[in-house]
């Protein structure tokens, strides 16, 4: 009953938070209690609807091949007809569940975290809009509808990262996020246009039929190009190298926003886009290879940077980039199931990590350097316990959530390419190492006497508790219930553990823990030694491989150079034309005005002469003064 209703009313899922946004921003900007409650109620209803939709998907036999589609014509003109509507299949249902759940928990957490903030109501309005955009993106039936919400997500990220707009760094970070993702959006838009030109449709279901036929007939070359263009969008949105630069800076937003961006909305949009259009990508081995290698490179690259970062949220940001690399790599090796599975488990433990980091920052009054923390396990036992759960989950220790999803990715990678598998395992090792480093430096060791931490309130701990439970069981329950039989592309994926791969990855993670304990377990001496010994490598990692600096150099040299050239042309070429035009007009005017003497008799004389001249001229033209020669 409820499931049926949710499925046919799935359009309500994005609409409820969207209306919350409208109501808050028009009527409730000065009533914090009502604003936050309204946002939570709207999101909670969406969550219930999403649950119902997921139940309907499970019970009514809705599969990826036979999704639930409800659509109507959005606009049509000769040669172009675009629909809008709702598409619910197991992939979308998973995302709906994850997004609504994480957003709901983040909203509840924010009532405590953001308390007393002057932008409290604005915050809840933006978060609602953010979630609405993401949910709209998830249920889109075609590329254009998806693109609209895709852009809305980009806008909301700008608004929320730049939430503290009075801080220059926050403003800059918002701008950076917006512009970096815009680069990707440009590629995506080009890809969408080329798809429309090639296939005369943007509908996911129609494309799924037409693309394989097209490939069979014309080969994959041109489509691979289109697919790579589309992939540029997710590269920017999901923080893949080399467009990942905005993600670490996105930490400037309030911590709940970071949790939301990194776990549920925004960055997973890119992964979801590839998954949604997997019918296109799956028949293009060239594009898949690019995705897989870029994914594994990103996973490794970001993990390498995360090894040495000192700010707690920055480590988590690079960890997100790395984990997104894992998801992309999973898609690249053709395993949609493991990618979506990891997306879900990652959402649980990454949201928990961020909310935990927020709790720590809240307690330490925004002291972000993990080397200045230490010993927080005594003063913040609940946060410590839950962060520990999340660390175990992300490192992939059985039976925590991350173990199952990461294992599936590694198995899928091992089937396709051994080098990718080995590199991914290395990234997993680094993940375990830097997460353990974060945990040891923050919660273990001796307390820093300058800090006076206190445990966070219930409104913050309860959402974290829910996420902690999910980080424990969020992997094994879907695994046991046959996640791969529902969320899949192609033949059903039967759950099973490859003990060689799973054992190896567990050992690798434990080795990472052990190494971190060896280096950071006993004070800072060993880590300081290591910093000096690894010199250049450390500097590279600490400075994020200088990607930002390269961009800045590029920007200064080429964009700045072009701007200077244009400026010169503007001043000296175009400016000269315009200046001379006004100077000439002015000079001509000041000379010509002398003709106007004010002597009315002179005017009359001029008029007379002009008339005489005109008459003579007319006579000369017509041949005689009087027509007919008779007077």
């Amino acid at each position, binding site marked *: 009953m409820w499931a049926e209703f949710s499925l046919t009313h799935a359009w309500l899922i994005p609409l409820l938070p969207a209306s919350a946004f409208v109501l808050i921003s028009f009527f409730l900007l000065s009533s914090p209690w009502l604003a936050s409650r309204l946002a939570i109620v709207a999101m909670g209803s969406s969550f219930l609807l999403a649950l119902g939709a997921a139940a309907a998907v499970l019970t009514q036999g809705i599969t990826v091949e036979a999704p639930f589609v409800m659509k109507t014509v959005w606009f049509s003109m000769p040669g172009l007809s675009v629909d809008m509507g709702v598409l619910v299949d197991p992939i979308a249902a998973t995302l709906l569940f994850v997004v609504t759940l994480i957003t709901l928990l983040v909203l509840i957490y924010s009532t405590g975290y953001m308390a007393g903030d002057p932008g409290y109501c604005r915050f809840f309005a933006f978060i609602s809009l953010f979630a609405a955009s993401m949910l709209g993106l998830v249920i889109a039936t075609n590329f254009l509808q998806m693109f609209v919400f895709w852009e809305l997500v980009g806008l909301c990220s700008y608004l929320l990262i730049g939430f503290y707009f009075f801080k220059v760094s926050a403003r800059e970070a918002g701008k950076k996020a917006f512009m970096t993702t815009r680069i990707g959006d440009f590629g995506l838009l080009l890809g969408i246009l080329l798809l429309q030109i090639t296939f005369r449709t943007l509908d996911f279901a129609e494309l799924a039929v037409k693309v394989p036929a097209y490939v069979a007939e014309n080969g994959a070359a041109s489509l691979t190009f289109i697919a790579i263009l589309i992939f540029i969008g997710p590269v920017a949105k999901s923080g893949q190298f080399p467009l990942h630069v905005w993600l670490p800076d996105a930490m400037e937003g309030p911590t709940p926003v970071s949790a939301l961006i990194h776990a549920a909305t925004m960055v997973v949009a890119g992964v979801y886009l590839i998954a949604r259009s997997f019918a296109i990508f799956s028949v293009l081995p060239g594009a898949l290879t690019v995705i897989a290698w870029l994914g594994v490179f990103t996973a490794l690259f970001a993990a390498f940077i995360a090894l040495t970062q000192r700010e707690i949220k920055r480590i988590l940001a690079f960890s997100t980039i790395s984990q997104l690399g894992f998801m992309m790599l999973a898609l690249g090796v053709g395993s949609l199931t493991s990618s979506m599975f990891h997306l879900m488990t990652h959402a649980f433990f990454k949201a928990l990590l961020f909310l935990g980091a927020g709790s720590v920052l809240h307690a330490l009054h925004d002291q972000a350097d993990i080397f200045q923390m230490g010993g927080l396990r005594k003063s913040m036992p609940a946060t410590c316990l839950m962060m520990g759960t999340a660390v175990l989950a992300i490192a992939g220790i059985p039976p925590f959530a991350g173990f199952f999803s990461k294992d599936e990715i590694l198995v899928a990678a091992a089937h396709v390419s051994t080098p990718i598998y080995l590199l991914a395992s290395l990234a997993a090792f680094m993940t375990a190492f830097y997460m353990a480093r974060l945990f040891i430096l923050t919660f273990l060791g001796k307390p820093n006497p300058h800090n006076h931490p206190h445990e966070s309130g219930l409104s913050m701990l309860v959402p974290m508790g829910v996420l902690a439970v999910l980080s424990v069981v969020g992997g094994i329950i879907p695994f046991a219930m046959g996640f791969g039989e529902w969320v899949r592309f192609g033949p059903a994926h039967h759950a099973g553990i490859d003990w060689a791969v799973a054992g190896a990855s567990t050992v690798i993670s434990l080795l990472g823990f052990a190494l971190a304990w060896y280096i950071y377990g006993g004070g800072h001496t060993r880590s300081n030694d290591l910093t000096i010994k690894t010199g250049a490598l450390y500097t590279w990692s600490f400075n994020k491989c200088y990607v930002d600096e390269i961009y800045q150099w590029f920007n200064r040299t080429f964009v700045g150079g072009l701007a200077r050239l244009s400026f010169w042309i503007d001043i000296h070429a175009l400016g000269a034309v315009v200046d001379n035009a006004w100077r000439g007009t002015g000079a001509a005017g000041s000379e010509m005005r*002398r003709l*106007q*003497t*004010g*002597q*009315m*008799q002179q005017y*009359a*004389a001029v008029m*007379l002469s002009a008339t005489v001249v005109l008459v003579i001229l007319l006579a000369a033209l017509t041949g005689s003064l009087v027509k007919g020669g008779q007077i």
Partner: protein
Amino acid sequence: MIGLSHYLLVSAALFGLGLFGLLTKRNLIAVLMSIELMLNSVNINLVAFSRYTAADASAGQVFSLFIIAVAAAEVAVGLALAYAIYRGRGTVSVDEIDWLKW
């Protein structure tokens, strides 16, 4: 026999006199009077043409009546302006009335 061309000659002579006065007289009143001469020469033309060539003889006469009426109004306005200028500037010489310029 007096024909159309005689009337036209008289009218042209009158127009030439008016034009001459308009261009040469220094006194504003005299200039206005010259304009009146030119208007009346036009009236002669209208009446003459209407008598000799037009199918409906009354059209030209109606026009000239209109011109007389308009001329009367014009004189009223012109004389009022001349009077006002004289009161303000103490002169009716058109040479000196040249302040409507740059």
